[in-house]
Structure formats: C-alpha cells, structure tokens
C-alpha cells in the first residue's frame, strides 16, 4: 500500500514556446527525504521545480509534457485541480515575497485564511508553530502585528518559509532559498531542513554544492535541460557515474 515514491516525474519536458527548458526528465522524489537539484545556471532547475506544482499553468505560452505523479496520480491528468495540487505541494521562491499590506501574522496565516479558518486561537497556534519551524518565532513574537516589510531580508525569507509551512504541505519545493541570505540565516534554514524532513518531503534547488552535500539525501545533476545523473547524495558526490557530474562537482566546469 505504501507508494514507492512520494512524487515522481516520468519523461517530463517543459517548452517555452518552441524552446525546451527541460527535456525528458524522470526523477523520483523519496518520501520525507531531501532531494537536491544542482547544475549550472540556465540548466532548467527552476523550470523543472515549477512543473511539480503546476506553476507553469500561470504563464502563457509554456507547455508541459510527460507525467508528474503525486502519490501515484498524475497532477496534470484531466480533472485534477491545480489549486489542490499547490496546496499539497508548497513552494518557496528564490527572493522573499512578503505580502506588503499584511502584518507578519497575517502573512503566515494567509494560506489558512483561504480555506476559511477564522478561529483566532487556531490561527494563533498555527502561526506560532510555523514560525518556530522556520526559526523566526523568537525574533518576531513581540511584534506579530507589525508590517511584514519591516523585517530584514533574511527574516522575510524565513517568513516566506513559515507561510508555506503553515498550510502543512506534503511536499515543499524550495528554489535557492538561501541565495540571498547571510551565513547565519542560511545556517538557520539548513537546520530547519534537517528538522523538517521528519514530516515533509523536500525538493531544493541550490547553487551551493556544500549545501547540497550537507542537507540532502538524494541529488540530481542537471545540464542543458536534461538530468545527467541522480543518486544518493553521498554516492553522487564521492563516486559520480558520469564524467560531466564529476567535472561539475570538482569545479572544473564552465
């Protein structure tokens, strides 16, 4: 009864008009593990990630081919509701995106408000839980009703993570979540990942190979829109099968 993988792509391709951003990628996402996507700039990591929760639906002119299975069911099958998919598969973007007209508290509970949760006690508890998970609680607990834009960049990114966590997604997609952060905030988020994977399945894009090696269980290496290699992280970094992977992780690449 237990699915082999939480998510899985089968022969996934994404086209911007005629130009393929991702070609024929088949990748398993293990349940409650961290999967890292690495590769040089422009190789299609973001494009691939956004295909997993149907974010491409929002951009005209983008076409997705192949299958994306979530618990064995294709999220692109007819009759599947992208709103439900995105609720189950959350996303954190590269740059923090606080909603500027909302307070810190309202930002965190924005997703819960959507489904009609009104009880202040429930909202309060959910906010505290999410903020604690995102390692932000101690810094903001005295000013929950201050505008979210008053936070620093690193705090705003952790707020974005808390906001994504508050709706309790099954899978969390993170696109270079620490690229705009200082080392301390980065550390906090890496710790968070280790913590989170007890309850959430995580796919993370990163440019930083030490980070991939530190936080992930599995790693996929992308090049020119294709997936070159996928393996357990320790194996991929110590004993890569493909010479191009080796060239990349040893820094002898573009």
């Amino acid at each position: 009864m237990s699915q082999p993988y939480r998510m899985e792509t089968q022969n996934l391709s994404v086209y911007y008009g005629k130009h393929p951003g991702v070609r024929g990628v088949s990748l398993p996402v293990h349940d409650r593990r961290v999967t890292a996507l690495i590769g040089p700039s422009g190789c299609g990591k973001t494009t691939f990630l956004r295909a997993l929760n149907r974010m491409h639906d929002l951009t005209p002119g983008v076409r997705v081919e192949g299958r994306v299975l979530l618990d064995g069911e294709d999220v692109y099958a007819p009759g599947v509701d992208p709103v439900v998919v995105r609720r189950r598969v959350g996303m954190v973007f590269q740059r923090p995106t606080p909603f500027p007209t909302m307070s810190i508290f309202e930002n965190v509970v924005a997703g819960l408000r959507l489904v009609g949760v009104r009880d202040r006690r429930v909202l309060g508890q959910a906010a505290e839980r999410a903020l604690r998970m995102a390692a932000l609680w101690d810094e903001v607990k005295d000013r929950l009703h201050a505008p979210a834009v008053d936070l620093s960049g690193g705090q705003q990114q952790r707020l974005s993570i808390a906001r994504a966590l508050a709706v309790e997604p099954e899978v969390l997609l993170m696109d270079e979540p620490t690229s705009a952060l200082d080392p301390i905030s980065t550390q906090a988020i890496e710790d968070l990942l280790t913590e989170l994977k007890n309850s959430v399945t995580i796919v993370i894009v990163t440019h930083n190979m030490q980070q991939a090696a530190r936080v992930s269980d599995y790693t996929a290496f992308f090049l020119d829109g294709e997936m070159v290699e996928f393996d357990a992280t320790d194996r991929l970094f110590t004993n890569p099968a493909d010479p191009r992977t080796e060239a990349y992780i040893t820094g002898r690449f573009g």
Partner: protein
Amino acid sequence: MNRTLRRRYLRDRVMVGLVGLGTAAVLVPLFFILYYVLVQGIGALDLAFFTRPPAPPGETGGGMLPAIAGSLVVDTLALLMAAVFGVAAGVLLAEYPDHPLNPPLRLVVDVMAGLPAILMGLVAFALVVRPMGHFSGLSGSVALALLMIPIVTRATEGVLKLVPWELTEAGLALGLPRWRVIVNLVLPAARGGILTGLMLSLARGAGEAAPLLFTAFGNPYLTANPLEPMDTLPLKLYVYAISPYPDWHRQAWGAALLLAAAIMAASYLARRAFRR
C-alpha cells in the same frame, strides 16, 4: 475541506462573471458611442462639409470650412507655444536637476495638469481678450497652450531622463560645451518621446471647446487672421448640437467623426513615435 473548496470555486466563478459584466458595462456603451459617431458622421462628410462656409440658420447645406481652418490655426499656434515652453521646462527639470526653480516648477506642472480646462479659458480671457478688447483665435491658442504645456513638460522630462548619462559624458569629452551636447546630442536622442508628448498634448487640446467659448468665440466667416474671432471644430460642434436645426445636427455628427479621427491619428502617431 471539500465544501469550502466548492464554495471558493463558486466565489471564483461569480467573480469572473462580475468582472466580465463590469468590463462589458464599460465596453458596450463605449462601443455604441464609436458606432454612432461613425455611422452618423460618415453621411455628413461630403465635399461641402470641407469646402463651404456655414449656411444661414435653418437653411440646409453649407459646411465647416471656417471651423476646420480655424481649428488648424488655433491648434497649430497652441502647439507651438506649448512646444516652446513645455520642452524648455522639461529640459530644465531633466538636465539641470539642481536648479532652484525646479521644485516650484514641478509643483506648478502637477497642479496645472489637473485643472479644469474651462479655467484656462477664464485666464486667457482676462489676459488676452480684455486687453485686446475683442475675442480672437490667438486668445484661444493661449488657453489651449496653458492646458497642453504640462503634458509636454512631463513627457519631455520623462524621456530626457531615459537618455543615458554616458551620451552627455561622451559629448563633453569631445570638447563640446554643455548647450551643444543638449541641443545636438541629448534632444535628438529623445526626439521620439518628445514627439509623443507633443502629439498627446495636441490630441487633448484639439478636442477642447470649453476654454474657447469666450476666447476664440466662433466666427461664421473664413479667416486666417488669429487676431480675429475664430471658429473651431469643437466649438461649432457644440453650437450645432444645441441648435434646433436637423441639418446642423447632421453636420455636428460629421464634426464629431472628424475630431475623433484626428485624435485617433494623433494618438496613433504618438504611439509610433514612442516605439522608435
């Protein structure tokens, strides 16, 4: 969960419907306006419309030659004035950003842009008509220019600020004095945007009747002398529309179509100039 989701979708659908309905409420009447102007106007645009002076009240026939000629004269003069003052003010704001005149100038331009056109007519009346002792096309041009200057100034300032500073530096490095750099390098580089501003201001000014009621005033006889009272298309349109004569109503629609076409042409030119 599922019941809330259904409710959310219901709301989504309803809002799509309301947004569509609101959009239709905007577009349908506006479409009707264009339709009537086109259909009613096209019949009135015969040769006489362009070549004949108006017929005496109540008689059929006649045309709008004096009004067309008057519009050309009054609008051209207004455009010239607006260009000279408006572009200069834009140059001051963009190229001499530290000049002490700039803060009041910017305030004044913002304020003038929002004033009702009819007030400009009152001012031109006091400044030109009163001293001259009679109505004149020139006073109408002054009123329109007051209306158009803020549009030209804003457009000029905006587009000049888009010209890269490197161009100025390159010119200065060649040993050109500042004024030659502005006149020969910066302004030509910004030509398209300035032209856009001029066209937009013309499109605005050419359709105004309110400030001309007691400046240009109107004149049934053909004249090219801006020191005399003059007719313009919007003025004539107004007078004919509120008259009791069916043939004048017919010609009013013709004037409306001609005006709309001219304004469309001006804004089309404005867009094209900006693209380049």
